[in-house]
């Protein structure tokens, strides 16, 4: 009986080996065809690829983009391919997902060569060692200075910016003819206009500290103290008298106060109401432009609530290079020489409606009055902080604001608890 089993096993093995041989051949063939879709000769074919990421012959880089910006990058990818013969494979990712997947995939050698995203991911990327530095050289001078600063972490640059965005006031020019310089005057004008809302600002149940920030900075200035060069230090600047005054302001204008601020107003609701002419003003960014198409709108600076100007956050979009990419040379070339070129930046502007990071393209874009409006509104803006702890900070921040606005808890005490929670989080 035992011998019988052995015999059978052996015959199975023979089967196996025979099939195995053919199996082997076919797979080699298929990998061969997969990797040579770039225009190259066979000489690269024998070079086995380590991980399938760096195809033989020519070059190919994988780039993550979000859905909205795909068309613009398709143009950049085509230009790159025409000029260099190297392929750019674009992979669409959800914006939130890009960051976390970049963090999990890059350490294993997977993931893209380049991902596009917001500059405030930088801290997390650098402290986890997933992003490679990029030297911009003299090219740095051609960009918006703040955009370059935003991609610099502890003195080293880690990305190439392509667009900047900030909040501003959209004004329905059919309803009102100007935006005053202070918040109270604006509300007064809004009320005079006789619409359902004097002014719209999205908040939502979890709060929206990014959107509320211009008003907040008008009280206490930048979120962190800044050093001489305008870079953030890690000393929190949200507390103290001014911070408490802002908390009080939130409560005064909240649901138990004037009701101008309301957590039930989400992005959806706000945009829809403005679109329907239910308010002369809305605080928003360039991503809303498409929604307001066909309306007679203007973009104005944000009125201040306190002693300082109302400075919104500057968000900078750009490309990061994976630290474990095998294609860093092409990736850098693609980012610096193509995404950083005037042609592509202008093209990206045409599709994304965000002010380009490259000054030449930005100047051209600013011929559009709306863009000029955003640029003017962003004059006092500082980049969003890119510290790795920001994720947690946003959470505390937003929830505290939502609480105060909805009238739960004593504003100043709630605010002070938040400051201490954030400080604990940052000290970890």
């Amino acid at each position, binding site marked *: 009986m035992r011998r019988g089993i052995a015999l059978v096993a052996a015959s199975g093995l023979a089967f196996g080996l025979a099939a195995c041989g053919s199996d082997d051949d076919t797979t080699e063939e298929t990998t061969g065809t997969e990797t040579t879709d770039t225009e190259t000769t066979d000489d690269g074919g024998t070079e086995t690829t380590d991980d399938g990421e760096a195809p033989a012959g020519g070059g190919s880089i994988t780039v993550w983009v979000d859905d909205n910006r795909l068309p613009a990058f398709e143009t950049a990818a085509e230009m790159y391919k025409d000029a260099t013969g190297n392929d750019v494979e674009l992979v669409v990712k959800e914006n939130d997902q890009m960051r976390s997947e970049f963090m999990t995939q890059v350490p*294993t050698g997977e993931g893209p060569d380049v991902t596009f995203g917001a500059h405030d991911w930088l801290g997390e990327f650098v402290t986890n060692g997933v992003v490679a530095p990029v030297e911009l050289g003299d090219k740095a001078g051609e960009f918006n200075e703040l955009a370059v600063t935003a991609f610099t972490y502890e003195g080293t640059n880690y990305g190439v910016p392509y667009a900047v965005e900030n909040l501003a006031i959209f004004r329905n020019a059919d309803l009102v003819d100007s935006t005053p310089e202070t918040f109270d005057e604006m509300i007064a004008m809004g009320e005079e206009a006789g619409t359902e809302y004097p002014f719209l600002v999205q908040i939502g149940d979890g709060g929206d500290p990014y959107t509320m920030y211009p008003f907040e900075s008008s009280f206490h200035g930048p979120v962190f103290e800044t050093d001489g060069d305008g870079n953030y230090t890690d000393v929190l600047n949200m507390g103290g008298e001014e911070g408490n005054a802002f908390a009080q302001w939130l409560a005064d204008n909240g649901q138990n106060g004037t009701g101008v601020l309301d957590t039930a107003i989400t992005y959806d609701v706000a945009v829809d109401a403005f679109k329907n002419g239910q308010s002369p003003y809305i605080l928003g960014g360039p991503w809303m432009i498409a929604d307001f198409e066909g309306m007679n709108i203007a973009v104005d600076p944000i009125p201040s609530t306190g002693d300082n100007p109302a400075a919104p956050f500057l968000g900078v979009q750009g490309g990061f290079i994976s630290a474990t990419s095998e294609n860093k040379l092409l990736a850098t070339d693609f980012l610096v020489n193509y995404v950083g070129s005037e042609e592509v930046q202008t093209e990206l502007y045409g599709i994304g409606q965000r002010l380009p990071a490259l000054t030449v393209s930005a100047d051209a874009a600013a011929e559009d009055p709306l863009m000029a409006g955003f640029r003017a509104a962003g004059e006092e803006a500082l980049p969003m902080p890119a510290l790795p702890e920001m994720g947690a900070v946003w959470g505390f921040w937003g929830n505290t604001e939502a609480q105060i606005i909805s009238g739960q808890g004593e504003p100043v005490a709630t605010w002070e608890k938040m400051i201490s929670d954030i400080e604990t989080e940052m000290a970890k």
Partner: protein
Amino acid sequence: MPAGKWFRELGFRHIVGVIAVLYSAFPIIYILSAALNPNIKTTLTGANSMFSDVSVENFTELSDTMFWTWLGNTLIIGVATAIGTVLMGAASAYAFSRYRFQGRKMTLMSLMVIQMFPQLLTFVAIFLLLNTLGDVIPALGIDSKIALIAVYWGGALGANTFLMYGFFNSIPIELDEAAKIDGASHTQIYWTIIMPLVIPILAVVGLLSFISAFNDFILSRTILTSQENWTLAVGMNLWVGGNEKNWDWFAAGSIIAALPILLLFLFLQKYIVSGLTGGAVKG
């Protein structure tokens, strides 16, 4: 039948039925009205005035998106998952029901316990595992539908053996015995005698695993990285997950996406009811 009696015996059942139908259907009617409303775009609030404007624009717009690709992927993955789960689950339920082997009880217990582990939170491990496997067997790597199906199959025994086990027990063992006397081998008994009798539970398990594959979000998002391979749950989340929303596509898409499951339900209805409880009741 006098009206009073009719009402007590049947009429009230209609009232309950109508209320239940309204209750079941109203959110779906709402989304249907949104799907037919051409003014829905980035906000859903316009849908509150129901059926104010009707057009199929949102549905035709879907062909400009990857919706049909995603639907295709979802169906492929769902069907493959369901078939594999049914085959493997039935085989193991048969083994547990018909054979008394060492460690049987322990295996059955461990199966039940393993399925309680929140698979959601093993996704880091799954990612790392597929990463390693992918180096050797590209078909089982990240961004492969086959890999995702294999992961779902990994859950085939845990989730379903119990459900099927009871049903198998309700098939009298005398049937097996009789067939054996007639000289049938165990494979013949399994395929020709047992399987036809347990079709209701096979239908139920198939449907349940199809639905869970259809609805899974975290695992499919972790494993399927490129847009061509996405399932509906991953793809449609993109439409309403971020700031820039596409409620028009979402509403139209969800109506279409609900159809396959609904059709399966109607198609399998007669098996489902008996399948879900048959084993448990008779056991």
